[in-house]
């Protein structure tokens, strides 16, 4: 099955709210998206009053790899070492959904037309949900960049937004992926070493301990919430199947020979409707939990990782600075290459101080963002759960009213 969905005229509220300041000077959003067989094409739409853009409003089409390229260019830029780099959006993953749709197509002969249509609708809804989520993730990334006072001025970012040709950014080939892998290994080993270095500054020491623990806890919570939501979806699927069975049990064919059972036909129809509605509500509950809770946790898993990376870079700079100090002392003692050592030490000092300064602000902002995001999502989660429970309750009570009234 080939799905080309062109949708999203109205973007749903962002899955993860990062409470961004949108100001008129630069507004970025994803106005449209197209899902093709193995890639997704995002239409990135920009509105800006900044002089460096040729027009005030324009759009380009970008793919996932180009987002990753942009993200990596930030990470590799030494000037941005002191900032929390907004985490890259996850790769669009429709494999599971596509597989399910394919299996459904193969099994078409073995189920009734009604079952088939129903399952197809559900799988399509699932596909659409995943699609919307991936669009939201990509959009959030761009918005975070646009909201950042320094990153929004980045040249690569402007190219990304404006250049209406293909950026010819290819995905990393095997060799590069291997290099990345080793870099990460080295980094984590290094990170352990660096983490051991006690920080003089209380603020950073506290942040280090906090982030380490927080990151792990978020990881755990994210995994557990995923599991919980999956069970919820399975239960919703079961209710769906029950509704189908009740439908067949309630058809007139089952009762046609007895007049007194006609009321039961109505009741069975009612029951079936009840179960179908229950299932829809359960499915929506699961979907909302997914959106408000699971996605939130996943996002902050990535952001806390980015914050940890910042701390790592700072510690790395600190270590470099301390090493440069030691080298300077040695050079002075030996009275050799003093100037070189002095310049080097000054550079390290400057770098470290610059990172420390911006890092402090970044981490404070991170906390503010995090608290705001959790607040918004938890409130929305509670409100949605209430809405669904109340809806369920009403449905069940009216159903019961009819059933009991008919006895």
């Amino acid at each position, binding site marked *: 099955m080939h799905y080309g969905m062109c949708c999203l005229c109205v973007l749903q509220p962002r899955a993860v709210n990062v409470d961004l300041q949108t100001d008129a000077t630069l507004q970025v959003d994803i106005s449209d998206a197209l899902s093709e067989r193995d890639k997704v094409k995002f239409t990135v739409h920009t509105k800006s009053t900044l002089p460096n853009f040729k027009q005030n409003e324009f759009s380009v089409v970008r793919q996932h790899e180009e987002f990753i390229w942009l993200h990596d260019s930030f990470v590799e830029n030494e000037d941005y070492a002191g900032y929390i780099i907004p985490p890259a959006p996850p790769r669009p993953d429709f494999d599971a959904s596509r597989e399910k749709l394919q299996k459904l197509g193969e099994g078409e002969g073995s189920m009734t037309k009604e079952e088939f249509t129903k399952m197809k609708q559900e799988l399509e809804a699932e596909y659409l949900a995943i699609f919307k989520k991936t669009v939201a993730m990509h959009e959030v990334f761009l918005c975070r960049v646009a909201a950042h006072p320094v990153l929004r001025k980045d040249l690569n970012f402007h190219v990304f937004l404006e250049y209406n040709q293909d950026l010819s950014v290819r995905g990393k080939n095997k060799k590069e992926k291997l290099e990345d892998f080793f870099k990460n290994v080295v980094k984590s080993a290094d990170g352990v070493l660096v983490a051991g270095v006690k920080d003089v500054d209380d603020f950073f020491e*506290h942040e280090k301990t*906090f982030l380490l*623990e*927080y990151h792990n*806890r*978020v990881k*755990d*919570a994210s*995994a*557990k*919430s995923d*599991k*919980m939501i*999956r*069970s*919820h979806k*399975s*239960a919703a699927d*079961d*209710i769906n*199947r*029950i509704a189908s*069975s*009740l439908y*067949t*049990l309630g058809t007139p*064919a*089952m009762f046609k*020979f*007895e007049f*007194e*059972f006609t009321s*039961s036909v109505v*009741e069975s129809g009612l*029951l079936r409707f*009840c179960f179908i509605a*229950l299932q829809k509500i359960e499915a929506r509950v699961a979907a909302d939990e997914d959106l408000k809770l699971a996605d939130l946790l996943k996002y902050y898993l990535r952001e806390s990782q980015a914050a940890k990376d910042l701390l790592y870079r700072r510690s790395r700079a600190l270590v470099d600075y301390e090493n440069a100090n030691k080298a300077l002392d040695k050079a002075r003692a030996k009275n050799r290459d003093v100037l070189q050592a002095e310049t080097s030490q000054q550079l390290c000092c400057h770098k470290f101080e610059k990172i420390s300064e911006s890092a402090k602000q970044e981490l404070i902002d991170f*906390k503010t963002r*995090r*608290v705001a995001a*959790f*607040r918004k999502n*938890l*409130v929305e*989660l*509670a*409100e949605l*759960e*209430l809405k669904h*429970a*109340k809806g*369920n*309750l009403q449905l*069940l*009570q009216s*159903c*019961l009213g009819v*059933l*009991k009234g008919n*006895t």
Partner: protein
Amino acid sequence: MADSTKDPPPGCADLQELEDAEELFPEPAAPPESEPASLPAEDISTNSNGPKQDLLFDEDPEDLFAEATEEVSLDSPERDLLLSDGPSPAITPITPPTSVITPCIGHAHDDMFTHSSFDEIEEEEGGDLFDMNISVSDPEKVGDGMNAYMAYKVTTKTSMSVFKRTEFSVKRRFSDFLGLHSKLASKYLHVGYIVPPAPEKSIVGMTKVKVGKEDQSSNEFVEKRRSALERYLMRTVKHPVLLKDPDVLQFLESSDLPRAVSTQALSSAGLLRMVNKAADAVNKMTIKMNESDAWFEEKQQHFENLDVQLRKLHASVESLVCHRKELSVNTAQFAKSAAMLGNSEDHTALSRALSQLAEVEEKIDQLHQDQANADFYLFSELLGDYVRLITAVKGVFDHRMKTWQKWQDSQMLLQKKREAEAKLQFTNKPDKLQQAKDEIKELEGKVQQGERDFEQISKTIRKEVSRFEKDRVKDFKTIIIKYLESLVQTQQQLIKYWEAFLPEAKAIS
């Protein structure tokens, strides 16, 4: 001669004896009216031997008691002897199957058998509405090791006149229930009554209990069984004919009950049962009945469909129970994780909110657990019961086929004998001829009886099926209502929890 039966009077479980006895006694002062209609509710059955069966088909099916005598005997006593555990000793066998049956045997409810006019009986019938509640409770382990068993307390609360007291209880074990079912099945199944099946044996489950494993799964097993036994008894007594059966009454009332040994799976009776079942299955395949009554064909198809649908539904509900239990476990784990997250969060208000979230999720996980139990006990078990009941219904249809076959066989045999007699006419063997004529007369009687049996079982089945369907619809409705009410409660609790949480979330600043 075998006549169809409605309800064997006390002591008539001793079939063989009776059948012979019947033939010895001259035709009792049986009222000329024959044959009460089939079914439901009361069962007085009668029969007159011999050709007085004209009024076999009662025009008014609701007319229960055309007759008040009881003479009973059952078909194929040999087979039934194997199935039945024999007469319940508390009931002393009565010998004379005459119409003058004194209430005897200490059961007050036998007076119905002595009513000579059916008006009286009908009145009694009408006045005695079904009002009975049986509960199975207090499972208690008795004994030790592999000989241990669970004893259940069976309490009956009733206002019906059929019982001596209004509230009484006895102790029974699982094999007692199986024994009861076995007796009822042997008496009623082959005349077309749908006898509710007993709960299934479970060697694994019981072994765990015997061995003394006191864990949750064996507790669940005992609870599941207790609930199943309760439903079984309620279903049995709801059947108007079975309710009056002496075995049922004895089961509910008398404090001593002989052990039903032939219910053990590996006993010789058990093995014989299995062999018979296999033989039956083969026979079923070879019987090709000319169905003259479209109703039966339609119904059989209907039950086949119902069977398939119910099994499907049952499977889905079982799956739901499983997933809800899983959901409960996962929610609990998430709750713990959220609590940890709350602990590590350094913003105080957010930290508190996350802890609250954890608490809410913990309560919700308990809700899911409770809901899963409701799913199971209300919904899933009911469906399981009905899947087994449908099998019993199908069995009853099969019996009808067998009855038909028997009738056909007698007819064919009669035909052969007639041909043989015709041939004998031309030979000079007067005694052989006489013998042939006698045999023919006997066979003619058999054929007529066979036809009557067939008509009777068909009638019974019609009534039974109608009753079954009514009950099924009622049953489902009751259970569904209960189930929906449990769902309502869950939602109400959810609303409470989330409403308590919302201000905490809003308080984050």
